[in-house]
């Protein structure tokens, strides 16, 4: 295990219940070397509500399992395009596909905390290591460093291979993953907390080499909204007013993001986002987080 620093780390994998997914640990110490937590959300499957009698919530859980599967398939397909470009030495092609490959990951980050070490393997930052050249520093951000800072991927092939392999572990594990209902309610909140975290998107820490934070920001919001949409029938019953409030706050956030670009047309570089715009984001995110923090209780979960 590498030395863990606490800098910039969220609660993340630390609180993880080891028992749940021992199978996912892998016996490859290189993979497991990623004791770093990356940017994952702090959900532990043991710490959230385990059960509900509410059929609408159970349907949402089934729906989320399907959503996660779909996102993982897309993630693997898009990431292969990305890593192929890296292996081929095609820097421009790889840059173009960097955030496209990350989008599904950022949408389903709540489940990252449920799979031991995966977040640290694929989404860690250099702060979790001795520096950007630390051989244990793997995943998207290591490749981001090669692409934008070194502008040289000649020796990045093994990192690309490792990313593909780690995502395969994620895919295999996710098929049998337990999804207690609390993951949905807490996950919707954590995805937004993740954006505003000190080492998250709002600070520009996450995509520091490429300045592409707005892409991951957008994907986090999409992932949270997907959860709220799945829970909407249950929320309609429990507290329709809260659902309306949340949807209005999502709309506001999308409008703020939309003013700065889109996945399709491209977002502006995060370094060009003004302090005023960040302040507006912080306010909207804060308001949305307060609302999302009520989901669990409103739905009668423990």
């Amino acid at each position, binding site marked *: 295990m590498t030395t863990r620093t606490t800098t910039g780390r969220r609660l993340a994998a630390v609180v993880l219940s080891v028992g749940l997914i021992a199978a996912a640990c892998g016996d490859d110490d290189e993979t497991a070397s990623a004791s770093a937590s990356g940017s994952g959300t702090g959900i532990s499957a043991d710490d959230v509500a385990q059960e509900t009698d509410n059929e609408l919530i159970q349907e949402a859980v089934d729906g989320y399992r399907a959503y996660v599967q779909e996102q993982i398939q897309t993630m693997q397909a898009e990431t292969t395009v990305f890593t192929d470009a890296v292996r081929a030495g095609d820097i421009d092609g790889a840059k173009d596909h960097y955030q496209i490959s990350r989008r599904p990951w950022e949408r389903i980050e709540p489940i990252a905390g449920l799979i031991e070490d995966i977040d640290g393997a694929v989404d860690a930052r250099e702060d979790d290591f001795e520096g950007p050249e630390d051989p244990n520093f793997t995943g998207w951000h290591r490749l981001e460093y090669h692409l934008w800072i070194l502008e040289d991927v000649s020796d990045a092939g093994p990192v690309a291979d490792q990313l593909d392999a780690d995502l395969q572990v994620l895919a295999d594990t996710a098929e049998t993953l337990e999804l207690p209902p609390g993951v949905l309610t807490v996950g919707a909140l954590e995805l937004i907390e993740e954006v505003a975290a000190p080492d998250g998107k709002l600070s520009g820490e996450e995509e520091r080499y490429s300045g592409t934070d707005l892409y991951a920001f957008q994907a986090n919001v999409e992932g949270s909204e997907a959860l709220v949409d799945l829970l909407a029938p249950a929320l309609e019953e429990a507290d329709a007013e809260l659902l309306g409030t949340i949807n209005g706050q999502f709309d506001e956030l999308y409008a703020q993001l939309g003013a700065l670009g889109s996945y399709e047309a491209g977002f502006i570089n995060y370094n060009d986002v003004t302090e005023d715009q960040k302040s507006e984001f912080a306010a909207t995110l*804060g308001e949305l987080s307060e609302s999302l*923090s009520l989901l669990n209780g409103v739905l009668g979960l423990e």
Partner: protein
Amino acid sequence: MEPHNRRRFLATAGAAALAATAVSCTNGDDQDATPSSGSSRTYPYLGTHQAGVTAPAAAAGIVAGLDVRAENRTELAETLTKLGVSIEQVMSGEAYEDRAGGFPALDTGILGPDIGPAGISVVVGYGNSLFDDRFGLADQKPVELQRMPKFGNDYLVRPERSHGDLSLTVNADSSEAAVHAFRQLLRETRGDLVPRWMREGFNKLIAEDTPGVAPVRNLMGFKDGTANLDAGDEALMNDLVWVAEEDQQPAWAVGGTYQAIRVIRMMVEFWDRTRLNEQEGLFGLRRDTGAPLGQEREEDIPVHDGFESHIARANPRTPGSERNLILRRGFNYVGGLDQNDQLDQGLIFVSYQRSLESGFITVQRRLDGEALEEYIRPLGGGFFFVPPPPADGEPLGASLLA
């Protein structure tokens, strides 16, 4: 601007099984309950004036400038309403409603489940920018309110550290109580108020709030506030602090006061290396006793002999200068290290005055160029107007927006 969830947070003022707690809280006269040292009390939210202005110097506090996100008058009314409800709850010392464990708790928990009196008073002020064209309030602006200008020694390089649509000044008996109150206020207005800057401060109270005796020392080691106004003297407050009907202010402003906030960094490393004789000369005071130089006791009247020490400039005691006296309610602050690894420490200066021009601005102009400037650097702050509390049953801001 959806009030939905906050309203639920706050729906609980009535859940006050704790109302029986022996608080001296009354609506009305805020002078009647002098605290005994060591035991916390509550301050009334309602009354003729905001109680936090004339409350005794507090052991702990948080001072902040915030912007509102409201885009029109209706939204501003909602924001101020929420803020008022939140202030009333934190000042009451009453416990928050319990909710099921599947929800986040309604309060920070810092003060324990019962909360109780913690000496919390919150002063809310309106900034100059609140009266710009967003809310149609230009004709309701207090006549002397303005954006704080740069004074001679100021180093206001980052405007985001200064000003704001609103100021919040939290006074409390402990840092924990101040933090609790401030977090409640921010949480319950989340999305509606955006903090621009904040400073956390403290005072080690060394005396009762006695006229002629400074209750605190500043971080330069000198007694601070020896000649401060006696906040318990109602006639004096009416004369020098509270805006009166004859002041030709907007009607809603009567009973309010102007607030000047200045975050003043002290170059403490440099100061600690400075000869005591020079330090005492700069202030015009003895460091140990607080007595004016050449005098015996702290409460003795200084004799100004031509050298313009800090106290001679601040309060020259010349005919007419008594109109420039201000009520000070500041805090010491410690803000970690600056970029050069020097200690960022100093004073959160807060003053209240009936006239900004006759009060703080005149005093500051006299201080401009003082020799002490070598050791201090104002970094931020702002000018605000502290309105009177709302009438019983009305929301905060009702009279302004009427």
